[in-house]
């Protein structure tokens, strides 16, 4: 546990994160998230966060060491897509019992690893620590080490008991585990001057596949995506990439920064949400690769592709301008990732009447003001009751948010669109923006609204 505490402190001190650096020494020690309030808390734990970050590695067996709750209540519930192995969707857990609590669960864990290797022969096994097994003192690092020697396979301990903190912290600890045990342990078969890593992208609803054709067209190879649709070998040999893109959220910033320090892989922070951000990200990738020695024509080829694809997207988007005239959107998201979406939505004629800035920095808030004007409604925390009132009073025509607030909108009989990680639609790149606009149109103009809002005849 002492080692874990050091790790947590280390993760809380992130030189590449401007929000983190703006804090004082003491405040930083407390970490990225506010102290949780019992009886008024929401959100996943550190284990949840680590699982989100690593489970997209498709050919690995992910074993959860703990009671049935941690895996049994939530397995196979995310939309990370695979182009190959489906092993990542198999739920493995030691499902520890009362006896294990009393006598310790290490032997059961070791046997579980053996069973999984005998039956499924994965290239690697990830073992996730949980609260109960941490509390009784099971040392998963030691078990993984013994298993690794015995079975001659990478067995990776992911030390993330839920009670150490939030989902975001779990993302980062997962990244630390990759840095400590996986990245740099294997070599790619070949390398090219066009090899990049994409960090913090989970291929939800297959979003990587909206980006990959663009990169393929430019001859850019994704050496490793960390971690969407990734193979273990790709992540293990990702240290040979020439450049990296860290996808929007700061969840895996530690991976990007430490890979730059250790392997001199430069990275930039970018996003594939929205048209201008997609173009900017492609430009940045090309620029970094050329700086690292790729032929210069990549820059002009990138510009040609961007021009062509932007035109193709706008051609399809412009048709919606008239239909969206005067329509108001309430946008509730994590924050940072939404700016380019906001500007694109505005460009097709939607009015953003309010947005949440819960996880945004001051700089982000300035950008909202720039985009939405001085009187923009920014909510730090919009309680469901207020959200409901706003929608019920028809101060917005549609709400875009995560699944958690879905029913607030639906029960107020207002259109709603899922833009969070549980969604089934892919919204990345140029294609994704077109899909998003199509989906908004589908929601706004669905014929049900008139009928469902009508009172019953006897009222």
């Amino acid at each position, binding site marked *: 546990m002492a080692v874990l505490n050091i790790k947590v402190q280390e993760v809380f001190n992130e030189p590449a994160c401007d929000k983190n650096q703006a804090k004082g020494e003491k405040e930083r020690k407390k970490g990225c998230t506010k102290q949780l309030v019992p*009886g008024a808390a929401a959100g996943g734990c550190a284990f949840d966060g680590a699982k989100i970050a690593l489970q997209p590695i498709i050919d690995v067996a992910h074993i959860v060491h703990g009671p049935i709750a941690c895996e049994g209540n939530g397995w196979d519930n995310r939309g990370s897509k695979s182009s190959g192995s489906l092993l990542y969707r198999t739920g493995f857990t030691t499902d520890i019992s009362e006896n294990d609590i009393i006598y310790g669960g290490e032997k059961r864990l070791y046997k579980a690893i053996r069973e999984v290797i005998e039956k499924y022969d994965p290239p690697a096994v990830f073992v996730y620590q949980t609260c109960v097994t941490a509390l009784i003192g099971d040392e998963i690092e030691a078990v993984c080490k013994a298993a690794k020697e015995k079975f001659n396979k990478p067995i990776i301990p992911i030390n993330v008991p839920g009670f150490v903190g939030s989902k975001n912290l779990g993302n980062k600890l997962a990244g630390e585990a990759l840095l400590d045990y996986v990245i740099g342990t294997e070599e790619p078969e070949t390398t090219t001057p066009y090899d990049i890593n994409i960090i913090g992208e989970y291929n939800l609803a297959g979003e990587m596949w909206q980006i990959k054709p663009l990169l393929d067209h430019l001859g850019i190879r994704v050496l490793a995506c960390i971690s969407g649709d990734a193979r273990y070998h790709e992540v293990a040999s990702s240290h040979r990439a020439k450049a990296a893109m860290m996808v929007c959220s700061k969840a895996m910033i530690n991976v990007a920064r430490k890979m730059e320090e250790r392997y001199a892989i430069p990275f930039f922070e970018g996003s594939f949400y929205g048209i201008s951000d997609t173009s900017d990200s492609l430009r940045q990738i090309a620029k970094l690769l050329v700086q690292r020695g790729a032929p210069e024509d990549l820059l002009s080829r990138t510009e040609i592709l961007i021009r062509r694809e932007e035109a193709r997207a706008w051609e399809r988007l412009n048709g919606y301008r008239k239909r969206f005239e005067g329509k108001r959107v309430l946008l509730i998201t994590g924050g940072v990732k939404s700016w380019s979406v906001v500007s694109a939505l505005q460009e097709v004629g939607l009015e953003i009447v309010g947005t949440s800035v819960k996880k945004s920095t001051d700089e982000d808030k300035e950008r909202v003001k720039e985009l939405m004007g001085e009187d923009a409604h920014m909510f730090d925390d919009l309680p469901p009751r207020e959200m409901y009132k706003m929608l019920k009073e028809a101060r917005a025509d549609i709400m875009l948010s995560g699944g958690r607030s879905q029913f607030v909108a639906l029960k107020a009989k207002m259109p709603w669109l899922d833009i969070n990680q549980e969604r089934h639609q892919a919204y990345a790149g140029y294609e994704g923006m077109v899909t998003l606009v199509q989906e908004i149109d589908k929601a706004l103009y669905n014929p049900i609204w008139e009928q469902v809002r009508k009172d019953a005849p006897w009222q």
Partner: protein
Amino acid sequence: MAIVSTSKKACTVNPLKMSQPMGGALAFMGLANCMPVLHGSQGCTAFGLVLFVRHFREAIPLQTTAMNEVTTIMGGMDNIEQALLNINKRAQPEIIGLCTTGLTETRSEDIHGDLKLIRQRHPELAKLPIVFVDTPDFKDAFQDGWSKTVARIIEELATKTTEAIPGQVNLLPGSHLTAADIEEIMEMIEAFGLTAVVLPDLSGSLDGHIPEQFTPTTLGGTTVDEVRSMGSSLATLAIGQQMERAALELEMRTGVSYTVFDRLTGLDANDRFLMTLSGLSGRPVPLKYRRQRSQLVDAMLDGHFYFGGKKVAIGAEPDLLWSLGTLMSELGCEIAAAVTTTYSPQLEKMPCAEVLIGDLEDLELRAKDCDLLVTHSHGRQASERLGIPLFRAGLPCFDRLGANHRLSVGYRGTRDLIFQIGNVFLEHSHENAPDSWPLPEANDEPATQAQTV
């Protein structure tokens, strides 16, 4: 008669089981204006929330005491106290349900004592009923959490009275019943001029209705006063073996005697139920049920062609396994594989050779040459790999609409269930082809003779 065994594996693969506090929390969700709380880390609640939201497609009231590393070791009383005060202030519930988790049970806390102290310190909580249940994740399963919680609600709230409420009966539905099932049973009870107090009543809270106002607690269900009145009822009807615990608790506390109905799916089972209602009310079985019975008999006649001889693999919690397994067996199916989550006395009576307390990997291995797989939505991967159709039954059902409106009790519900499953058999019926009847590949005898000549 079946031999009940437990999987010996160290690693559970593709869990069938969900944890006890989930069952407990769901039972609390059948109380009106209630806020269920899990005493554990915030993740325990988050996973549960996602699970229920996906199944019910409803907002789910479920809070957490947000235990962290330090409070787990030092003890969670402060967190419980804060949680209760915060919930009382923000959500103003009529009752709070508190389920422990593996985390707090590992340290082992004296919640009973903690609550006493908290109540002493906070007179504002005096009128707020708080029911806590011990539901460690590392023991038992979802169904156990549900039945323990109902028993605990009764223990805390039900009171012995001298005044009987004429015509009132108690209905204790198991966790395997849907909102539609509960509605159907209530309708049957009411058809005899009786009224039912249902505990817990998911048909009031999670039946997917549109409330007039936003509320952070449950949207309906059994009220605290209704639970308090259960001691004045004529009788208790418990549906599913799991509910005997709660029914017994109620009888011991209030003297109201109970009958357990192991299932309400199937002809015999419903005959018995209706005759019991007839006896309690002194009224004959209404005409509509005589008609429905006849329809069910006809459905059994029409359906038995497609059920007969079919091999079925079922993975479900004990009471659901019992309901579905016995019905399918009565229609001529062979229960080739039965996997469940926790022990229950009726497992030994299952019409199959073995009942295994195991996971979906066990079910998949045993289902290889079956015609139908019956389990919750997580069976979808196995169904695809085996090329066997999946009939979704139980919780969670996250990849189909209307899980909580599926009816499978009563004559009518049984009839519809027979049609639904029968249609799956029909859709996947085997077509004969030229190579359907190959001869064995053994040595061709005349040819062998020709060679030796």
